[in-house]
């Protein structure tokens, strides 16, 4: 049995004046401990798919199963990281990282300790009493990662979590997130529109195309790249090849006369 099974998802958004189909005929599987990326131009339903997997939206048709069970938000098995940190500005860093535990009513001593350990692992010492706006963008996104990991989700979903950061911070965070997830053996899905990031971080890349969103093609990242850190992947010679082939596919989806 697959760890995560996404079976024939269709989703349509209804408004008074229109019915827009965001996703059609999406099926894929993710194995435990695997890192998968959803890549594609904007408007191809990537974020919708994440919301469906997280159980935030009910798909019009289709089924998502995590370890054979239908997903729902109640079980706390899925962690979700957004484009921006969305730390609560009126809460201290400590209150922020314990938010998930508080919501699920599991503020136990060892879990609190786990959250604090994670924070230290992310290279953030003695920031607990501070407020989010006293930290830099990269630090805040690390705190957001701690908040997501503190509830020990089985599946982690990253919705363009590095897109709001400057390039250097982004590279550093890619390494940190990749290493952290690998060391915990976490399964993760990353949504991105950055080809390099998708290659550097994942085991497999799904390329989505719009109108309505569906899987265009799937790429296996070569073994020699998978074992490297994201930073070193970008410098490997095999990186350029896979980059080129994904780039060509993307070009074929997006009409060139757009610019």
């Amino acid at each position, binding site marked *: 049995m697959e760890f995560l099974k996404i079976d024939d998802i269709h989703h349509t958004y209804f408004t008074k004046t229109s019915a827009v189909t965001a996703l059609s005929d999406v099926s894929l599987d993710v194995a435990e401990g695997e890192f998968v990326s959803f890549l594609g131009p904007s408007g191809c339903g990537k974020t919708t798919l994440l919301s469906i997997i*997280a159980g935030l939206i009910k798909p019009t048709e289709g089924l998502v199963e995590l370890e054979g069970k239908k997903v729902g938000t109640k079980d706390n098995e899925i962690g979700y990281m957004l484009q921006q940190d*969305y730390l609560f500005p009126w809460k201290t860093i400590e209150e922020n990282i314990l938010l998930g535990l508080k919501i699920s009513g599991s503020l136990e001593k060892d879990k609190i300790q786990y959250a604090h350990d994670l924070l230290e692992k992310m290279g953030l010492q003695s920031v607990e009493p501070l407020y989010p706006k006293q930290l830099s963008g990269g630090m805040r996104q690390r705190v957001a990662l701690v908040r997501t990991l503190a509830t020990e989700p089985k599946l982690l979903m990253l919705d363009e979590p590095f897109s709001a950061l400057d390039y250097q911070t982004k590279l550093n965070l890619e390494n940190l997130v990749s290493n952290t997830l690998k060391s915990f053996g976490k399964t993760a899905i990353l949504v991105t529109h950055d080809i390099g990031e998708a290659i550097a971080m994942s085991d497999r890349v799904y390329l989505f195309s719009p109108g309505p969103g569906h899987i265009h093609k799937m790429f296996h990242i070569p073994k020699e790249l998978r074992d490297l850190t994201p930073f070193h992947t970008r410098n490997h010679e095999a990186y350029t090849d896979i980059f080129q082939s994904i780039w060509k596919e993307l070009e074929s989806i997006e009409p060139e006369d757009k610019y």
Partner: protein
Amino acid sequence: MSLKTNTELLHQQFIHSLNREKRWVRFYQFLIFIVIFAGWEIASRLQWIDPLIFSAPSKVWNLLIVKIQDGSLWLDLSFTLSETVLGFILGTLLGTLLAALLWWSPFLSKILDPYLVILNSMPKVALGPILIVALGPSFTSIVAMGAIISVIITTIVVYTSFREVDPNYIKVLQTFGGTRYQIFKEAILPSSFPVIISTLKVNVGLSWVGVIVGEFLVASKGLGYMIIYGFQVFNFTLVMLSLLIIAVLATIMYQVVELIEKKLIKNN
């Protein structure tokens, strides 16, 4: 001279200039105060203005002393102040509760929307006579005036701010399996505190309007009664005294709200 001591020196100069500016601001504020009251006194004594209508600071002061000594001032003052504070708290609390209810049930908010618009555009003080007939010419109806004048606008403003909370904060809580109540408590309410505080500031003024009008209509004591009584017997010293006391009390209430603001909004 080393660079470090130079920086310290410049910093001291900077602080010094800040303090100097602050002193000048205080000086001019005090000067305006003196000019107004001295001008008022002189104009009244020299009959530039009619002393019967505009009174004079010295007369107001003497009346204040008399009223403090015979204890009648304290009676009026505490009566009006308790009405205003009660009306203010009731109006704000009810308004916020109503806003929470509307947020809780979007269906209800759709139903009530036109009624809110009507109630908001209506001049609330016009309801005064009805309130007095319904609740009796008493403390209760005056408090009700103080509350009713602010409750609808509080509801509308606070509800709008509830709805404008960034949906991504709600998404964060939903991914943790948060219930609607938890979403309200952890995201909606705290992120609306700045708006609630600013409605508190507006409501201070509104409650005073409601209470003073209420007292015009029914009371046999209170600061509003002092004004209407002074007007009827043509004792404008009494009117002026009441006005000045109201100004002081309303300012104090405003300051208290600012204190609450500092306590509540820690991250600013």
